[in-house]
């Protein structure tokens, strides 16, 4: 892999960019792999990368039915934070955040991780109690964060409306300065390039259609391009996890729902942080290109259509106009949807299954982009060693039977 740098850019410019190397190969699949990762989203690619990098397993294929990073990785509002309530979640997301902090250098690919801070707004007294609780828990877990006043919020995001006369006035917020955003595509591409360089085969436009088992253990996958053998199969297929699980005769405690987002036309820099509000249902940041990136609440019904209902978008824009009355004259440029895998406790599943050699990493729902590095890291470890990584242990499938859920619903700011 040729290293990227300002110097390489200059050098290539002089030769009219005619000599750039391919970011990844387009290999023909081998007959058999040690590990097949199903799903070439951010999490799947990160899993493959860390399997190769940390565990030295390089006979790996990532099988993606569409194009790399084209699922929710391509569709999310890119919010990154680690201020989760429960210890288990907080530790997992903070591992992720720490990995984000060095990811561009690790991958030699600028994922544009921008630590511009995240505000989670509170609009009523219970919101504020929840925020206090969460921020205190974060602090004692070693995660940065503070509870800030409306005046401080206004300093951070000058266009925000902190009037007491609003329908749901802003009473305060949690503020995590280390949070922020990253360039979603770059994350997938950076991991893909890194994995490819370590020998991982990235196989696109190939759909896994079956999981072949023998004597209770997995032996490979059927694909739209034929059978490929594997000793271990690691499924990281987000919204399609239920479908893939069914291929192995399993059911999961996940439901796939539409989640929508939209962007405005690009405007000059006017919002230098990430603002999220669960109570009025909307969240917003501004991309480096200038568009306002806005996310909605999840649609109520199951759906695999990568689109949702207009009234959800209306509701979200109303919330944004409440928070930022000045944005009322800005215009929506594009809207789209993703299919998110929602879990009853709003926490992921990182788990072995009853089938030997078959692993699932899913259930990230509306908020897994921020976890991409950490998720890949602990999942790779789990797959490589056939036992849960300590930070993944709490996220096993068995919790739905025992009742040991990690209920992040209780905590304000759970979404995204």
């Amino acid at each position, binding site marked *: 892999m040729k290293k990227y740098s300002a110097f390489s850019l200059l050098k290539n410019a002089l030769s009219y960019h005619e000599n750039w190397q391919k970011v990844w190969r387009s290999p023909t699949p081998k007959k058999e792999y040690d590990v097949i990762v199903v799903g070439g989203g951010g999490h799947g690619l990160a899993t493959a990368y860390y399997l190769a990098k940390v565990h030295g397993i390089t006979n790996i294929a990532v099988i993606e039915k569409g194009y790399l990073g084209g699922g929710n990785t391509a569709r999310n509002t890119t919010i990154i934070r680690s201020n989760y309530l429960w210890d288990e979640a907080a530790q997992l997301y903070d591992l992720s955040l720490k990995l984000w902090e060095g990811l561009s250098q690790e991958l030699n690919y600028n994922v544009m991780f921008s630590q511009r801070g995240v505000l989670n707004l509170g609009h009523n007294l219970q919101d504020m109690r929840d925020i206090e609780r969460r921020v205190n828990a974060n602090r004692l877990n070693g995660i940065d964060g503070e509870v800030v006043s409306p005046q401080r919020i206004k300093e951070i995001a000058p266009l925000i409306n902190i009037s007491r006369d609003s329908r749901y006035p802003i009473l305060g917020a949690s503020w995590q300065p280390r949070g922020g955003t990253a360039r979603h595509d770059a994350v997938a591409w950076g991991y893909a390039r890194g994995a490819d360089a370590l020998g991982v085969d990235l196989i696109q436009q190939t759909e896994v259609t079956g999981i072949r088992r023998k004597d209770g253990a997995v032996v490979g996958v059927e694909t739209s391009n034929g059978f490929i053998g594997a000793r271990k199969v690691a499924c990281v297929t987000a919204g*399609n996890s*239920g*479908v893939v699980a*069914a291929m192995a005769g399993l*059911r*999961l*405690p*996940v*439901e*796939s729902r539409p989640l929508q987002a939209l962007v405005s036309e690009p405007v000059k820099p006017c919002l230098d942080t990430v603002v999220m509000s669960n109570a009025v249902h909307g969240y917003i940041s501004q991309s480096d290109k200038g568009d306002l990136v806005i996310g909605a609440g999840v649609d*109520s*019904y*199951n*759906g*695999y*259509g990568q689109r949702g*209902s*207009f*009234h959800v978008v209306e509701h979200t824009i109303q919330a944004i106009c409440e928070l930022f009355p000045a944005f009322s004259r800005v215009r929506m440029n594009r809207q789209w949807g993703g299919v998110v895998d929602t879990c*009853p406790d709003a926490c992921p599943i990182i788990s072995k299954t009853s089938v030997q050699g078959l692993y699932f990493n899913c259930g990230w729902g509306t908020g897994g982009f921020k976890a991409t590095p950490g998720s890949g890291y602990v999942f790779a470890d789990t797959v490589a060693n056939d036992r849960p990584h300590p930070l993944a242990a709490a996220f096993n499938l068995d919790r*739905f*039977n*025992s*009742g040991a859920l990690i209920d992040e619903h209780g905590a304000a700011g759970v979404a995204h």
Partner: protein
Amino acid sequence: MLLIHCPHCREHREEEEFSYGGEAHIVRPLEPEALSDEEWGDYLFFRTNSRGIHHEMWYHAVGCRRYFNATRNTVTYEILETYKTGTQPTITGASA
């Protein structure tokens, strides 16, 4: 934006009037205490989450306040039929 035929109101009505009720035809075990934690967990949380034909409950919340069932394609969002609670769908994954 779905347009849903309420079998009680006998009209197509807008999605905003309804709320989604989850997968249909999941019967509560008659003797919960007789189940293992696994079996009970399965009833509580594990769903077919089908891609394609899906039987689901809808509540006509801002209408006749009745629950009913729909057979909907979760990819195209086409609603193939709606039918009253307690009755069976005429269209199933097998028949489609």
